């Protein structure tokens, strides 16, 4: 066993442990702020795995997009909606958790079986290594040109949709009577359909 392979094995074990423990923490921790920061750790360890898989460009994209954008977005959302609320108990919650845990364990067993039983055609062709970025650029501008352009349209649609969904509608006068109205009244009183109708 050479030094290179030992180093690689150590890196893989550390990254895998961080990934598994971090994802369990994301799902199980009661404080959602800790979950969000652990999610950043999970994204970073996934980027480390990409580096081990000879993909430096995708690792950089992972850090920029996931850690830099998605995780920060999630943290901002937590800051905007983080109100202490006591969730009322639901009958059969423990049973539901156990049942869904059993379903997930079955799915996990299925995936593991597929991964270990399938005869993968190994070893495959030689990895391109440092030329990966060049290959990705060639792919994006030749045979994957249409999905690339569609992705830009999708991002534009998502941006406009997010702005439209998240902004507050500014209505300065009541549509029915013409009186100037209060924004708080619009959101609380004049949308009775969306308010909570469950008996308390």
């Amino acid at each position: 066993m050479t030094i290179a392979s030992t180093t690689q094995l150590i890196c893989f074990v550390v990254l895998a442990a961080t990934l598994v423990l971090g994802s369990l923490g994301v799902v199980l921790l009661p404080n959602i702020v800790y979950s969000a920061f652990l999610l950043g750790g999970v994204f970073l360890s996934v980027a480390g795995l990409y580096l081990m898989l000879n993909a430096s460009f995708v690792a950089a994209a992972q850090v920029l997009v996931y850690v830099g954008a998605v995780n920060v977005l999630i943290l901002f959302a937590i800051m905007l909606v983080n109100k202490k609320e006591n969730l009322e108990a639901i009958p059969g919650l423990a049973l539901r958790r156990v049942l869904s845990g059993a379903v997930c364990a079955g799915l996990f067993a299925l995936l593991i079986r597929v991964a270990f039983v399938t005869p993968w055609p190994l070893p495959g062709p030689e990895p391109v290594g440092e030329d990966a970025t060049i290959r990705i650029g060639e792919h994006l501008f030749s045979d994957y040109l249409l999905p690339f352009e569609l992705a830009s349209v999708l991002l534009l649609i998502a941006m406009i949709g997010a702005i439209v969904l998240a902004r507050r509608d500014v209505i300065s006068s009541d549509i029915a009577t013409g009186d100037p109205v209060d924004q708080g009244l619009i959101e609380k009183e004049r949308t009775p359909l969306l308010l909570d109708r469950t008996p308390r």
Partner: protein
Amino acid sequence: MDSNISSTIPLEAYLALAAVLFCTGVWGLINSRNAVRVLMSIELMLNAVNINLMAFSNYLDGQLIRGQVFTIFVITVAAAEAAVGLAILLSLYRNRETVDMERFNLLRW
């Protein structure tokens, strides 16, 4: 690029790791009561799929790295999904004053 370096860790290790991450994400998606945590679970599942794509791209498709291109597209779609999902969440929170998934039941039979 030395060929025996990348074969120290078997392909199945990456697939098993991605399976763990995916199942954790599915469990969190079903059982979370906070809507933000549901979105985080979806991100975990997308990352598991990305690990699979990257592992196959490196081990079985080393010359034409199509898995990496697919991963970039998945990252793009995940960014768009996160933005729209959190905007929907903010809109919901403004109307219902809660992030409890059990109380978003206006359209549930």
